[in-house]
């Protein structure tokens, strides 16, 4: 196939060629960036909570008198354990994807000079790590002696804690975290174990980088640790157990109000946590589909027009000996060239848009692999769109050459 005559013909239609090329360029730029955004959202949704989500439920109470905290905990835990199918019930301040319960900046020295970041605190009563399904990759889970009384505020004054691997690597890169200490003002913490994953309750100001900056503080229930409970049941029973637990609360704790917004299974809490990401990813998929559709419609429209315009020339070529397949290839090659004219500036635009987005929305850099994939997708789209008009062109009979109009 000779490209020279095609380029000569396109030069005659500079404007239309330019328009389609520009459309392809914009589509390429938006396509690459939208795909990268979708990939980011999907990656964010893969966050590992580190706990047995399928077996866990969370019950939150509000509006009770904090003076009755110990009594309330005893009543609720006993009441929840009595529900058939409940494997265990524990007092815990919050769960992954649950309400924000403990969030504080830590320092690596008692004087508070060396800031370590803002992290999430989990506080739970004896047996909670086992119920959550936490297991250590270093050190050990808290012993009975590690559980101490929580004062009216925050956490025990001197606690032996589990930390996530992500936090350990952030605070003490390439060091053994066991036995290391950190402080929140007068509160002192010593690391006794490391768990592979434990995600935050809600993102804090550290955003995605701190998604797993968490510690688990063993404590005895009472004081500030009251009103929020962890249920463990077989995944098959969990929905029924949760329904029964919510109904039972009215009898067990008539003095409290069930927090319907937050009392859910961990699966439901997780799905709620990521619903914005899911909605945005869905929207982007819709935009990409509409974008490809509109671009292909543009190609179909213009190609059809050119086929109609060149009706007679096609007839003459056919009469002079061109085969059908030559005509078909002519239009396909022409389309390939136009799309290529679009892809080159499109790639530059994709990178420019990505740089702008990185500046304003703190998005990661566009992986370069997306550029060839976007280019191939648009070439394929162009060929698909031009196929029907090109076949129509190939079907023009040679006899057309003999007609005057």
């Amino acid at each position, binding site marked *: 196939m000779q490209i020279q005559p095609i380029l000569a013909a396109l030069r005659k239609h500079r404007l*239309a060629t330019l328009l389609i090329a520009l459309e392809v360029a*914009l589509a390429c730029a938006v396509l690459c960036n939208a795909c990268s955004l979708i990939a980011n959202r999907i990656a964010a949704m893969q966050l590992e909570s580190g706990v047995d989500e399928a077996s866990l439920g969370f019950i939150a109470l*509000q509006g009770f008198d904090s003076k009755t905290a110990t009594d309330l905990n005893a009543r609720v835990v006993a009441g929840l354990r009595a529900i058939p199918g409940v494997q265990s019930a524990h007092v815990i301040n919050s769960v992954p994807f649950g309400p924000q319960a403990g969030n504080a900046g830590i320092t690596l020295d008692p004087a508070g000079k060396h800031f370590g970041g803002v992290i999430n605190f989990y506080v739970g009563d004896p047996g909670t790590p086992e119920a959550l399904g936490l297991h250590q990759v270093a050190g050990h889970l808290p012993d009975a002696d590690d559980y101490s009384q929580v004062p009216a505020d925050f956490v025990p004054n001197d606690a032996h804690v589990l930390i996530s691997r992500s936090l350990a690597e952030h605070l003490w890169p390439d060091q053994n975290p066991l036995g290391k200490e950190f402080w929140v003002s007068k509160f002192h913490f010593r690391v006794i174990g490391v768990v592979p994953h434990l995600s935050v309750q809600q993102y804090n100001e550290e955003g995605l980088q701190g998604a797993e900056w968490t510690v688990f503080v063993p404590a005895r229930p009472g004081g500030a640790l009251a009103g929020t409970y962890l249920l463990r049941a077989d995944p098959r029973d969990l929905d029924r157990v949760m329904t029964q637990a919510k109904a039972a609360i009215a009898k067990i704790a008539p003095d409290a109000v069930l927090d319907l917004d937050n009392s859910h299974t961990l699966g439901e809490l997780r799905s709620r946590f990521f619903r914005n990401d899911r909605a945005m990813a869905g929207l982007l998929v819709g935009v990409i589909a509409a974008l490809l559709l*509109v*671009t292909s419609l*543009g190609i179909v429209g213009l190609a059809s027009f050119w086929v*109609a315009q060149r009706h007679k020339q096609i007839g003459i070529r056919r009469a002079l000996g061109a085969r059908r397949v030559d005509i078909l290839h002519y239009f396909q090659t022409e389309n390939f060239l136009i799309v290529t004219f679009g892809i080159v500036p499109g790639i530059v635009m994709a990178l420019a848009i990505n740089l702008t*987005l990185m500046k304003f929305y703190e998005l990661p850099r566009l992986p370069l692999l997306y550029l060839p994939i976007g280019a191939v997708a648009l070439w394929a789209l162009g060929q698909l769109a031009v196929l029907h008009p090109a076949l129509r062109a190939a079907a023009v009979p040679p006899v057309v050459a003999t007609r005057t109009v």
Partner: protein
Amino acid sequence: MFAYYLNLAIRSLKRNKVLTALMVLAIAVGIGASMTTLTVMHLLSGDPLPEKSAHLFYAQVDGDPTPDYKHQEPPDALDYRSALDLWSAHRADRQALLVDSQIKGRAPDVDRPPLMLMMLSTTADFFPMFEVPFRYGSAWTPADDANRARVAVISSDLNDKLFGGRNSVGRTLRLKDSDVRIVGVLAPWRPSPQFYDVRGGRFANGDTAGYYTKPEDVFTPFFTGLEINDGNFYQFNCWAPPPTPGHLENSPCNWVGLWVELGSAAKAASYRAFLNSYAQQQKALGRIGYTETRLRKLMQWLDFNRVVPSDVKLQTWLAFAFLAICLFNTVGLLLAKFLRRAGEIGVRRAMGASRRAVFAQCLVEAGMIGLLGGIGGWLLTLFGLWLVREQPVAYADLAHLDAGMFALTFILSVAVSLLAGALPALRASRIAPALQLKTL
């Protein structure tokens, strides 16, 4: 002449229905997407009090006695002492302290289990300052603030829930363990965003949809609220752990908001000077360590907190990139359409039509496509907004098309199609009549 062009346009559009449909569809989809996101942007970035916002200011002082190097900006809320000092100085036309908290509430004479309510504790100026509409009764008086009177104003929603929407002024509400008398019921009030509670936006990583929730259910006088819900207040931040969490008076925490109304630029300048001199004086006394203060106008405060969620901004950019693609598409198709009629245009030119007349005729046809695309775009916008309302976001119930945005749909659509039509129309008007007539 216009009517004639219109007639020609309709004939021409009818001649090639598929091409016409493609163009109308492209414009409709582009307009639908961009108007949906633009409407949401318009709702979220609007001024909640357009007539007044220039006179409303949010005051910031840093109460921390030993700020570290990280302080470049006073915190988003005041400590109790600074808030009270500034409020009781009465240097502004109006001033309101505010803090919100969650409280258990029920109506003793209504058979309904208790609810958890959001309570805003504020001072009497809040209502006139923010032009809060009342359905029944009225706000409490400054004397009620001073006397810690057990009174409350409730929202229209709560009045519907507890009292079936009837006038409940004079009835009793039990908040935690205290009885308060209802003195006012608000008319439906839905500021967008819930601007007076906005704070902490710079730490939200763009996830700011929560600023568009509904106003609180219960409003009580500031000091009354602190008494009846003692132990249930949350700090914005603390520079040392509070001795009694939930009880924040005289704690090392920032947690109270102060809004002031200043009727003129001179008053604003003098209030700014007052804030600065207060901070200097407190620093001299050794109570605070950092004398930077801020006094931002309402809209500046919303901008500072970047209230429009970053997802919404991203969607708007995306929609306009999409509209641009639709525009290029339409230009290409119109070009094809007009040049295909070269023969017809050649005849018109030969019969004496000026270039301008051909140009106008082509533009009328493009505008016609824009109008049809506008109708499609309007329907798609309604569909898009319905989709937004189905989303579980705080601003979902706000997503409606108002008259201005309805008009803008058609203006944008016709403008886009005229823009798309300009170049092809220019090309068409340049057609040399002789050449065309020869080929006929």
